[in-house]
């Protein structure tokens, strides 16, 4: 293979990308070496099994991916602003909408939420860690290495260009030769391992590790949403695993699952993909609902209205999410009866979702609303998401979908639900729990500025797309006709407004790090749930003494009764897991194996897989059972954290 086949050549934008990657890498290496931070990096982060640190790494990576996906989005919007624009050519446009969609869903939205779950769920249930801390680290590294594998495709080998849905036969070896599509398949496969492990880990954590007295129906609602999400993950991800594996075997080993030559069925891909893909959209929306419920209850200073209805509606949504996948291809000729069945099941989801909307409104009703930045994101979510939901029901009507299918109407719809639902929730959750993670709040003024830029930009960007979509503009086209120009220009302006909002958000992180007041108590917002019962920074063992839960809003109850999570009398040595470099190394080797498969260098893939098996063997023989934190140390840590 020639070097210029290995590296992507000929595109100025990509050369710029290469230069910036080289610069950032060099700068990072320089800084780490200059300040002698390699040991610190290894001990504190690469080998950590602490759920809070893992969560923070997830969130930071997700923010980086949001940046990458956002740049993709702005490039597309620039290209679409004017007819005959020559910013991107058609091939490059195809690659960018593919990487944008994939990065946003798999490497941004899901990891962001999993990051928040990691930081918060064990704290909310009064646990000292997740059930399988080392497995948790493994999950993170599998996500990160998967994301890296996918992302390097744009400088090495070439990006995939068959859309994030990768429909066959377009994505097959005949029509998409070369490594691009393989990057998609193996990047997703690698990170999928970790997602499944996360699902199992959180199910066991929540079922088994709740503080004494916390019955299932006394769990905080974000924890509930995590449990339901973990359930969807466990039952949906194996479908993706199989689908990706079948396509990989088709492409690399010449099997005939999706090819027409061997009597394979291209439509089977669409079915398998969406049997995972539809539940996937609930994997990114249910935790978002959980976050909004927490934020709204806290800042309305009221108990969440209709707690049980909230839980049951989530469970119902999770069940229904497996029964609607065909609505993604009503137009592909399944016939009227099949379409009708899936049309009805799709619209049914609106019922439990509506229940939730009313419960949020009822929580807010006659309350003393505090308009903090976190709450602004939550409040803005409600009407925005309703617009997305209503247009979703429109798309769910099979007959009408023949008009909307693959048009900008759809693009507007899914951005309304994904951004107003998931992205707003990520921001709300990050702002809300930020003081717990970093020991200071984000600046509210700058936060509001960023919020308004983002919110207004969002509506300006996506609302016009409903109309240009009804006017017939298809999705995934790289140029427009003059009639569509005005609305497209508006849309592009809005997109840049969101970009500015994001930049201000990131600036706020820097600004607050420098200037915000440090947290003293750990209870930053006068919170209701147990995560606020820990001091800030949270000691690595979370709770010195585990609280006894008697009521909903356990911490509020404790505050009323004057209880704390640090009772010197009751201290006992705490058992904690030791750090380990195995997850990082194992997934690093897995990365090499996957890279080999991407280029169809079997020797490399096999060597890597053997390495992984050896690592599993080493793990099996590892009987390190962790260590005990002695009472004296707990006392010292707590006193300094609580400033006693």
């Amino acid at each position, binding site marked *: 293979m020639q070097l210029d086949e290995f590296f992507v050549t000929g595109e100025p934008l990509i050369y710029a990308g290469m230069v910036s990657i080289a610069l950032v890498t060099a700068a990072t290496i320089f800084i780490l070496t200059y300040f002698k931070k390699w040991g610190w990096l290894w001990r504190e982060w690469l080998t950590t099994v602490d759920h809070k640190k893992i969560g923070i790494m997830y969130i930071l990576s997700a923010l980086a991916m949001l940046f990458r996906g956002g740049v993709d989005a702005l490039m597309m919007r620039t290209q679409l602003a004017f007819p005959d624009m020559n910013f991107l050519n058609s091939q490059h446009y195809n690659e960018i909408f593919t990487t944008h969609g994939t990065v946003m869903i798999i490497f941004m939205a899901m990891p962001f939420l999993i990051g928040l779950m990691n930081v918060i769920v064990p704290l909310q249930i009064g646990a000292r860690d997740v059930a399988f801390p080392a497995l948790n680290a493994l999950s993170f590294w599998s996500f990160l290495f998967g994301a890296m594998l996918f992302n390097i495709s744009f400088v090495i080998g070439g990006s995939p260009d068959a859309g994030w849905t990768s429909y066959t036969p377009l994505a097959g070896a005949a029509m998409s030769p070369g490594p691009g599509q393989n990057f998609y398949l193996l990047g997703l496969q690698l990170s999928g391992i970790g997602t499944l492990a996360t699902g199992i880990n959180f199910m066991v954590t929540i079922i088994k590790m709740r503080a004494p007295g916390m019955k299932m129906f006394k769990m905080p609602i974000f924890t509930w949403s995590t449990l339901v999400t973990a359930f969807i993950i466990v039952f949906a991800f*194996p479908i993706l695993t199989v689908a990706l594996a079948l396509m990989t*075997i088709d492409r690399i080993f010449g099997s005939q699952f999706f090819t027409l030559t061997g009597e394979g069925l291209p439509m089977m891909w669409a079915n398998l993909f969406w049997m995972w893909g539809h539940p996937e959209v609930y994997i990114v929306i249910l935790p978002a609902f959980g976050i909004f419920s927490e934020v709204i209850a806290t800042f309305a200073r009221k108990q969440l209205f209709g707690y049980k209805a909230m839980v049951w509606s989530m469970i119902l949504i999770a069940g229904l999410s497996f029964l609607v996948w065909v609505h993604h291809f009503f137009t592909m000729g399944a016939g009227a009866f099949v379409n009708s069945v899936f049309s009805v099941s799709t619209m049914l989801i609106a019922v439990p979702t509506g229940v939730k909307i009313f419960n949020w409104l009822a929580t807010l009703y006659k309350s003393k609303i505090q308009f903090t930045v976190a709450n602004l994101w939550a409040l803005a979510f409600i009407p925005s998401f309703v617009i997305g939901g209503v247009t979703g029901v429109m798309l769910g009507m099979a007959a009408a979908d023949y008009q909307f299918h693959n048009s900008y109407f759809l693009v507007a719809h899914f951005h309304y639900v994904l951004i107003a639902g998931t992205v707003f929730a990520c921001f709300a959750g990050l702002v809300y729990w930020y003081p717990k993670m970093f020991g200071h709040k984000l600046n509210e003024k700058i936060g509001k500025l960023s919020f308004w830029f983002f919110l207004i930009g969002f509506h300006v960007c996506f609302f016009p797309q409903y109309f240009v979509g009804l006017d017939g503009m298809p999705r995934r086209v790289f140029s427009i006709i003059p009639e569509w120009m005005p609305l497209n220009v508006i849309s592009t302006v809005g997109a840049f407004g969101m970009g500015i909002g994001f930049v201000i958000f990131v600036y706020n992180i820097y600004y607050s790090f420098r200037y915000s007041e440090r947290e003293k108590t750990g209870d930053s917002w006068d919170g209701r749930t147990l995560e606020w019962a820990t001091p800030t920074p949270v000691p690595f063992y979370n709770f010195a003494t585990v609280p006894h839960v008697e009521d909903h809003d356990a911490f509020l109850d404790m505050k009323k009764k004057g209880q704390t999570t640090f009772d010197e009398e009751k201290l006992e040595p705490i058992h904690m897991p030791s750090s380990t470099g195995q997850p990082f190394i194992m997934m690093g080797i897995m990365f090499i194996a996957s890279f080999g498969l991407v280029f169809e260098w079997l020797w490399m893939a096999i060597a890597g897989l053997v390495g992984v098996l050896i690592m599993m063997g080493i793990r099996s023989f590892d*009987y390190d059972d962790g260590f005990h934190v002695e009472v004296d140390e707990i006392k010292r840590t707590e006193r300094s954290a609580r400033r006693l």
Partner: protein
Amino acid sequence: MSSHELKSGPLEYRTEQGQMNILGFWIFLGAEIVLFSTLFATYAVLFGRTADAPLPGELFEPGTVLIMTFLLLTSSFTCGISIHEMRRGSVKGLTTWLIITLLLGLGFLGFEIYEFIHYEHEGATLQSSAFWSSFFVLAGTHGLHVTLGIGWAILLLLQLAKRGLTPVTSRKVFIISLYWHFLDVVWIFIFTSVYLIGMVV
């Protein structure tokens, strides 16, 4: 993360970590059910799409498949005995029966490999048609699981020799027994819905 131990009940359930590992593994088996169901569904959808390759009825051999089934079912039984021995606290009984289980598993694998090579010779390969792709991937995934199970159990035998029965080793053995029975159940489905149906249709 508590290291409290219970005083009674099966050894593998006596620590909280043990209980969590076992529950986690049950959930993992749930995911495995979805994985195999997807493969079965794929196989069902692609059934009969043999292109120019031989039909399954022409190739499937009742004899071989019956022997394979017998080997695997028996191994599930011996695996059960080994857990019984573990409950009685007999490391020797446990290892003996576990080794017998593995030998039966190896026998199964041997026949499967023979079978696959035989089909190749008759012109049915992974590449020859959608039907055969789905057959090889479904049966092959099961075979791969058996192979991994054997490797895993060998590691456990070494640990048993070194450490004897502890809450940790017994939990590991118990978990692999769940895995082994699960593979047996999957095989029963392969036996009926792939081989039996393939031979009569």
